């Protein structure tokens, strides 16, 4: 086991290089709060970092080899090397197949595998796939009181919702969930890739109606709507139903709309919309939701659509992520995702082609949006979750679409100005209705 003092020297630099690190600069000090060796050769570290407004806690796992014999698996993964201490090369233990294999037995006692591989770039966690059969997700940024993903997945399964990868083990320690191991769905494909497959087919096809095109996605979108509704019913069952407060939504939306540039939207139309939202008498119920629902969070498996990653938007505070809200927030997230997919596939095309394809993008988006909503409403109707009348339902859905689109506009303006037109066009469309 490597000692804490040595680690504290190399950790600040190492952390700043990780995708899952929340800060933007090299932290000035870090504190090793916990240290252990759960399996031989693997140093497990709990490290506190001062962020501007508090303390963030990270989980780091470290392997070591003599610095004179650097192992082959670190090649090409230099960001995973912590540095050299006392003649030992320290590196992220998940790169080391031997240690990664032993880690499985820590998370799921008695479980063994022959082959392990890292899953690739992820925002806030590190995942390992064992024998194409199990996936172990190591949480990096820890929150006291349990990880929402663990909490929700376990609760969903307990409440009869089977469209999540079945959990087979959780690694807990003190107040923290450190890792979850779930079944790995080998034949599965991500919703985002499937949508793009359908879009590329449609854009290249000699036909203007997505329904008449071989790669039509609408039956999948409809089934996804159905699964989403069942997920919400199970979430309501697990975490309770609460009254909704359109006044609070209206305030929050106004606050967000105010962050836009004045010319982004028609201010009068925006004000009219907020009034329309305030006037909603039947807003439906509020429940625990997925919170970061989009095509990248759903997998099409041989047994239908599966839902992943219930952590919510990782940049938001935990309290906000777990707060009950309308299930239509998730629905809005998904229909925004259809919009993005249709436009991303346009951007893939040669520049001279894009204008001609634009009307197809809209047709695809509308068709799949409708199919998704149809599948969703058919299964959610009668559950009491949604506003009973269609006009209120549309208003609440539009509220969350607007809210999401505002967030997207702010993000794109700062980081990807080329994409700004996608959420802006959505904002304008929503307010024109």
């Amino acid at each position, binding site marked *: 086991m490597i000692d804490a003092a040595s680690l504290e020297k190399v950790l600040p630099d190492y952390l700043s290089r990780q995708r899952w690190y929340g800060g933007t600069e090299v932290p000035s000090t870090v504190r090793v709060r916990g240290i252990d060796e759960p399996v031989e050769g693997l140093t497990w570290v709990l490290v506190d970092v001062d962020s501007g407004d508090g303390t963030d806690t990270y989980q780091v796992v470290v392997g070591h080899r003599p610095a004179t014999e650097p192992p082959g698996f670190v090649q090409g993964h230099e960001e995973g090397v912590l540095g050299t201490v006392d003649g030992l090369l320290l590196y992220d233990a998940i790169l080391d197949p031997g240690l990664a294999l032993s880690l499985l037995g820590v998370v799921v006692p008695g479980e063994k595998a022959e082959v392990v591989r890292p899953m690739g770039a992820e925002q806030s966690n590190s995942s390992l796939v064992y024998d*194409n059969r199990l996936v172990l997700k190591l949480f990096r940024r820890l929150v006291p009181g349990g990880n929402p993903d663990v909490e929700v997945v376990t609760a969903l399964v307990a409440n009869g919702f089977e469209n999540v990868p079945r959990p087979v083990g959780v690694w807990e320690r003190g107040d923290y969930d450190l890792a979850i191991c779930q079944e790995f769905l080998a*034949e599965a494909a991500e919703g985002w890739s499937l949508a793009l497959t359908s879009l590329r087919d449609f854009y290249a096809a000699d036909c203007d109606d997505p329904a008449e095109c*071989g*790669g039509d996605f609408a039956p999948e979108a409809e089934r996804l709507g159905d699964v989403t509704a069942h997920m919400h019913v199970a979430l309501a069952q697990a975490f309770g139903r609460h009254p909704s407060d359109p006044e609070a939504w209206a305030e929050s939306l106004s606050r967000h709309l105010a962050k836009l540039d004045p010319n982004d939207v028609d201010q009068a139309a925006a004000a009219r919309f907020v009034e329309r939202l305030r006037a909603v008498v039947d807003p439906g119920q509020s429940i625990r939701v997925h919170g970061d629902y989009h095509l990248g969070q759903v997998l*099409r498996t041989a047994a239908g659509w599966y839902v992943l990653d219930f952590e919510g938007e990782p940049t938001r505070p935990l309290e906000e992520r777990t707060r009950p809200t309308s299930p239509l927030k998730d629905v809005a997230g998904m229909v925004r995702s259809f919009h993005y997919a249709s436009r991303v596939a346009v951007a893939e095309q040669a520049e001279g082609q894009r204008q001609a394809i634009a009307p197809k993008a809209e047709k695809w988006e509308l068709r799949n949006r409708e199919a998704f909503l149809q599948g969703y409403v058919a299964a959610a109707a009668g559950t009491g979750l949604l506003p009973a009348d269609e006009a209120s339902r549309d208003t609440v859905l539009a509220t969350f679409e607007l809210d999401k689109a505002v967030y997207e506009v702010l993000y794109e303006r700062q980081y990807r100005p080329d994409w700004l037109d996608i959420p802006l066009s959505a904002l304008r469309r929503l307010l024109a209705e």
Partner: protein
Amino acid sequence: MSGLVTPDDLRWYQRAVFYEVLTRGFYDSNNDGTGDLPGLTEKLDYIEWLGVDCIWLLPFYKSPLRDGGYDISDFFSVLPEYGDLADVVRLVEEAHRRGLRIIADLVMNHTSDQHPWFQESRQDRTNPKADWYVWNDDDHRWSEARVIFVDTEKSNWTWDQQRQQYYWHRFFSHQPDLNYDNPEVQLAMFDVVKFWLDIGLDGFRLDAVPYLYERDGTNGENLPETHEYLRRLRKEVDASFPGKVLLAEANQWPADVVDYFGDGDECHMCFHFPLMPRMFMAIRREQRMPITEILAQTPEIPDGCQWGIFLRNHDELTLEMVSDEERDYMYTEYAKDPRMRRNIGIGRRLAPLVENDRRVAELLHALLFSMPGSPVLYYGDEIGMGDNIYLGDRDGVRTPMQWSPDRNAGFSKADFAQLYLPPLMDPVYGYQAVNVEAEVRDKSSNLHWMKRMLEVRRQHPLFGTGSMEIIPVENPSVLTYVREEGDDVVLCVNNLSRFAQPAELPLQRFAGRTPLELLGRVPFPRIGELPYFVTLGPYSFYWFQLAETPS
């Protein structure tokens, strides 16, 4: 002589490739306009050259031919237009001499109403064969049993004037069902089976097996009594004729079809029906889900059993014949897609079905040859033959085999007007353009490609009996799996899309091995610890043997 399927191999059917032949349409030896058994015998060299293992003959028994020969009027004799018993004997001998096997269609459930058994049975209620068929005074019994040919039949009962009773028929009214509750019928059908096995047939494709028995309060399908009879039949066959195969046609959901394998003590093989439309659907959708979904719903089968898999056969693909669940799925997926609506439910040959896109036809065959099961080819598909939808019913895919650009496609020297069906003459699929003679000469033809694929498949028994593991790939247009048996490992990578596609394959388990592309025998870069990267052209596929790297 085949290296893979040897005469003393009792489980040859697990690794065999079948070739379905319509005797009427293959080759006419006596120039009467109709193909015949001596004609087929003459063409055995071609079938051997192609590299298949077993011929499947559509019914060649005596028949009034009101249902393509599935209405048998004498189980012990040959339809005179096709030849006689001596011709069957010679065909079987010549086939066996070449290492080819032959199975034939056999209808167990019913006979033609012209069969002497039925003629006797209908005389009165007391004759010796009075109980060989299913008679009743009214037509209300077993109303739970669905009418299969709803277009032509109103009821499963038909009134017989002569006997003044109704008789039971699950198919056409001219095809009365045999009464399997009668022990004499059970034994008579054993005799039929033994008669043909004695002559040397290597087995049967059993037509319409789910319907042998009738029971009150049931739909009359898949009854325990039917399975019991099949077990007895299997025992009889195994006892006297080891190595013969029974292939069941039970057009049901895989989870129900597996019952016809029993515990490995009923049929050796069953057709896997839903896989075929799913393969077409996956290519239309450009993604693998339709295939992986049906594979996930396909149960394990007992030791010694095998699926029969196919792309096309002599029947149309009727959605009515798969389960309601699957039909609903197909309709949801395709009801709005005019191209699929046109093609599903209508008999088309493979080439027109894929709009004559050779890349798609090759990809479909690559899938067929590498999926778990024994592939069944339909005569003519190896040269990319077309169809004639204007011939109606199922005749559109039963036109004469196109042997050469000569008169009548080289199929017959009869007058054109005498031919049982006109050969194809259109500019794209007609015999002037598509024929065996031309394709034998052209090394880059469909035919040579098929022959090469069959050669490669033959070198790897794992395609028949190996395990199958899906390899996870992020790109949904790429379907990848590993077939494995003992030390032999073959990796199959398929691009279901019309666009070129990349794929990163997690092959860490095979790190250190060197992929050898099996069609060209070109070694690819060694597999390392990182994901293995391949690029695939539109509708392309690779079969890689994962061989130990030579030191």
